[in-house]
Structures are given as C-alpha cells and as structure tokens.
C-alpha cells in the first residue's frame, strides 16, 4: 500500500493525540485518592492505644510506650471497632468511586474500567476479615490490630492506576506503596523505636504516623492529580482534533 511517510506520520500523531485525550477524559482517580485519604485520617481515634499493666506482670514504667518487650504491657484497643469501621469505609469509598466514574462517563461519554479495582479491594478486605488477628512473618499483624487496610488501599489504587494508564497516577501510587510499607513496619509493636526512629510518637498515639502520613499524602496527591488533570485537559479541549 503506497502511503506517503508524511501521511503516515500525520495519522500516527493524530491517533496518539486521540488516545491521550481519551485517556485524560476518563480519568478520575483523584477523588478515589482523596476519599481513601479522608477514610484513613478519620480512622485515627480508633488507633489510640490504651496501655495497661496486667497485675500479674511487672511493669517497669508508668505511661510506657507500647513496648517491644513482650509480656509487660497489654494493648486494649478496639479491634472489632476498627474492622467494622474499615468494612463500612471501604464499601462507602467503593460505592462513591463507582458512582463517580458513572457520572464521569455520563459527562464525557467514555467509560473506563473500575470494577477490577473494586473487586480486588473487596476480596482483600474479605481476606483480612477472615484472617483477623493473624500474624504474618516480619511481625505484621493483619486484621483487627494492624494497619492492613493501608495495604488494601495500596493494592486497590495500583489496580486503578494500571487501568487508568496514567504514568503520573502510577508514580504517586508507587509513593503511597512506600508509605504503606513503612506503616506496616511501624506497627503496634513500634518496631522502628528499636532503631530509634520512633520519634515523639510513643504511648497512646504511637500509631499516629502510621495513619497521618499516608492519609495526608493521599489527600495531597489527589488534589495534585486534580489540578494537573485540569491543566492537561484545557489545551486539549481548546486545540480540538480535525478529521477529513
């Protein structure tokens, strides 16, 4: 077929432009990030640790941090409340996400895939509920006591980022993965205190950084995505695409 290189180049450029424009039009991950960020921060009071001393055991200090020394302190946090909270929070976030993408579809006319993210998120949530209290290697406690919901968020967002095919979203979600991993290690046994990285967050609010850092990160990156998305769409809409 005798197509000129110039015509081929034009067809390729136009096709790329259409693909980028379409991808941009179906993107809506910013809201999901913000919602998960809010859900993480709202969970904060549920992560307050009440440290009490069992009468039968010797307690060396009064308001001690959740020590890594086993057997001295017991934690009395409401794991059931946490599980209930996260179950409801995930269902709400996924429902809003679904509605948000439906609305986006009605507004723009393009429909992306959100079901895989919701399916994987709910599956992981069910797994965590089933495995509540299970301690996996490295001392990470799933379910009632740990910060496993952050891992569910990380996996769900990774699936969403892959389906949105946005390098920016993938990068930001990658950053969240690092924070989620950090939070899992900075667990209720406060592992990082052993290497003197515990900082001022000891005692009842020892889990504060686990939630505040990733939660704030999600909200900020969500807003960043929104603003960059708007900046990107403006010139796309102004330039338009012409076909003969």
């Amino acid at each position, binding site marked *: *077929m005798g*197509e000129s*290189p110039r015509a*081929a*180049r034009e*067809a*390729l450029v*136009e*096709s*790329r432009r*259409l*693909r980028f*424009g*379409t*991808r941009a*039009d*179906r993107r809506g991950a910013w809201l999901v990030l913000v919602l998960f960020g809010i859900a993480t921060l709202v969970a904060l009071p549920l992560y307050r640790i009440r440290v009490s001393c069992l009468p039968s055991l010797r307690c060396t200090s009064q308001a001690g941090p959740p020590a890594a020394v086993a057997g001295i302190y017991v934690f009395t946090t409401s794991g059931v409340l946490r599980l209930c909270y996260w179950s409801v929070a995930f269902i709400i976030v996924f429902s809003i996400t679904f509605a948000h993408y439906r609305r986006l579809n*009605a507004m*723009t*006319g*393009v*429909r*992306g*895939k959100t079901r895989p993210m919701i399916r994987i998120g709910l599956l992981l949530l069910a797994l965590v509920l089933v495995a509540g209290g299970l301690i996996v290697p490295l001392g990470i406690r799933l379910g009632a006591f740990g910060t496993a919901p952050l891992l569910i968020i990380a996996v769900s967002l990774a699936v969403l980022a892959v389906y949105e*095919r946005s390098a920016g979203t993938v990068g930001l979600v990658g950053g969240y993965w690092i924070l989620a991993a950090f939070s899992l290690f900075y667990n209720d046994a406060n592992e990082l205190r052993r290497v003197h990285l515990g900082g001022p967050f000891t005692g009842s609010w020892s889990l504060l950084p686990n939630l505040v850092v990733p939660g704030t990160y999600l909200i900020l990156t969500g807003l960043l995505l929104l603003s960059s998305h708007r900046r990107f769409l403006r010139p796309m809409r102004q330039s*338009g*695409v*012409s*076909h*003969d």
Partner: protein
Amino acid sequence: MTDAAAELDEIVHQRSRLGILAVAYEVESVDFSYLQRNLQLTPGNLNGHLTALESVGLIRVSKSFRGRRPLTSISITSAGRKAFRAEIARLKAIIARADAADVARSSDRPVSRATLRDPPLRTT
C-alpha cells in the same frame, strides 16, 4: 496477504476509522456523541464508518437508553485491538523506512565546503 486480511487492512487504513479504533482502544466503551465530537464527523458519516467496522467484527455497537435519551455505545473487540496495533506498527514501519532512506541519501550526498564550515542545525 489473504483477501480477508487485505480487506481488513483497507478498512482500518481509513483515517476516521483509525481514529474510532484509537479512541475505543483506550476505554471499555465510548458513546457515539463522544466520537462525533472528537472526530468532527457528521452523524451519518460516523454511522457509515461504524457499520463498516462492525461488519468485519472490529467493534461492537450496542444501543440502550440513558433516561429517555437513546444511547449508542461502541466497544472494541479483540480483533479490533489486534487490527489497530497492526496498523500502528505499519505506520511506524513506513516512517522508519522513510527515515532510513533519508539518512542513506544524506550520507551519499557530497559534502560542500560551506557545509563543512557551517554544519546545518538538526531539527527533528
């Protein structure tokens, strides 16, 4: 190339149809109005292209209602994905061949003294 492959190639080769496939390639489904707006085609023209693509199984067209408004959604089939990728590869090959020919031509051309003194800036 078989007759069927040649026919498929001819269908995808058309600019507007390639545009339809490019958009549909990126999403689960796309509305008729979105394609019309972005490809700047008349409804009749777009309909013709969609019929051509649907007849060879490159896209699926489904009709439904959103509220009271009729809604036509277009989604790409796996054959459509394959055909689109093949067309993009073909276009890239044409460009690569032309670029290679340009390089070969420029290396055969005798270099003038003026060019040696002031080499031209490459603008790509």
